[in-house]
């Protein structure tokens, strides 16, 4: 019971893209992916940095399904969604078929598939640019380890109900819990911070210094000594 996933272990995560079979121009696909990545990178409470590989992924549909792809997480388009099981191509715009975790709870194999099935109602080229961006952003959220949100305005809501990408507070809270940023390197409190710093970062040291000065001054200058008559 409960989610003990820790997301990906690395702080800098590279997404690989194979644009083969995608039914929108390659440059537009990259633009939508980059905008979606930028939205997730702009969240302040997380230390995760997402980048897109500038070289085209050589791993494709068959490698991904065979679980032999090494360029993960992978973004690709599929012209036959039934290859991934019972996926309704008329309703599913994109999905994450695999989210494999190791014994420690870190994800090591995942990616997202966009619907490029010819004739399908939910096929990629039927969508407005903002909707493609929203779908990519939503599925990237799943690849990072997020589930769905109950807020209809959230990016992680299960339905496409607007035509622009917006990372709401609910989405931010979700990703912050998976990849929390802590300039003190986990030195405070008893909550588990799964990424341990091997050394205290400079900004953390400065922050500790400020905190100690604050507490010292609050204590030091609050004492009033009784003067003898």
């Amino acid at each position: 019971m409960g989610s003990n996933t820790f997301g990906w272990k690395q702080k800098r995560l590279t997404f690989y893209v194979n644009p083969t079979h995608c039914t929108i121009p390659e440059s537009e696909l990259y633009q939508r992916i980059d905008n979606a990545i930028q939205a997730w990178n702009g969240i302040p409470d997380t230390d995760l940095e997402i980048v897109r590989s500038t070289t085209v992924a050589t791993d494709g549909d068959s490698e991904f399904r065979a679980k032999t792809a090494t360029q993960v997480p992978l973004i690709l388009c599929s012209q036959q969604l039934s290859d991934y099981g019972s996926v309704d191509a008329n309703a599913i715009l994109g999905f994450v078929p695999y989210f494999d975790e190791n014994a420690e709870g870190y994800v090591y194999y995942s990616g997202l598939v966009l619907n490029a099935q010819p004739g399908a109602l939910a096929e990629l080229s039927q969508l407005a640019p903002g909707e493609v961006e929203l779908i990519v952003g939503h599925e990237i959220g799943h690849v990072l380890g997020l589930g769905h949100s109950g807020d209809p305005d959230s990016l992680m809501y299960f339905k496409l109900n607007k035509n622009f990408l917006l990372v709401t507070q609910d989405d931010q809270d979700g990703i912050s819990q998976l990849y929390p940023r802590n300039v003190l390197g986990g030195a405070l409190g008893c909550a588990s911070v799964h990424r341990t710093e091997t050394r205290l970062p400079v900004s953390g040291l400065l922050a500790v210094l400020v905190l100690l000065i604050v507490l010292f001054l609050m204590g030091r200058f609050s004492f009033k000594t009784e003067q003898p008559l």
Partner: protein
Amino acid sequence: MKKFSLWILIFISSLSASSVFAAGWKLQVGASVSNLEQRLSAPPGFASKVSEIQGLLGVSKSLKISNRFSLRPESFVLLPWRKGVDGTTLTFTSHAGLSIDIQISKPLSLGLGNGLLWEMFCSRGEAVNLGNGTGTSTFYTPSRWTQVVLPTATISLEWKFSKRVGLQFGFLISDYLNSNKRRVRGLGKVVIDL
């Protein structure tokens, strides 16, 4: 290093806790608006989805260095704490900082400072049934508590309109060195000499 830092913090906290009831403290009561630039640029109807307004309760102390300059250590918590959409995750936010106050004129002073913003996310792995594709699935909140600590810079303007009460408005900028992640929080407080 972790244990050493923790013991130092416990020691200093004990020292300051023993002086909490001493005179000279100021009470801060007000409100905070998070992600100001996102709130202003959000599409119509979505401002409250990207930015939160919460109450603020804090303490501070003014330590005079010279006629014009003072040091102001302060700390506040945001109330009520933030609840997740499903009501299963609670987020507690607090801040501790040190500012230098510069007396511009008799009632007006400018404050510039540095500090730490601390957020604690608390959840217990509750199950939530949500839509998924053409059906529903069971999702789970994390089974652990998580904390976020960010460096901050603060700037404020305080107008003292009576001997004991002042109005303070300012901004708290978190992660100010990172242009991608920098966020601005607006603060408005009534400051009361205790």
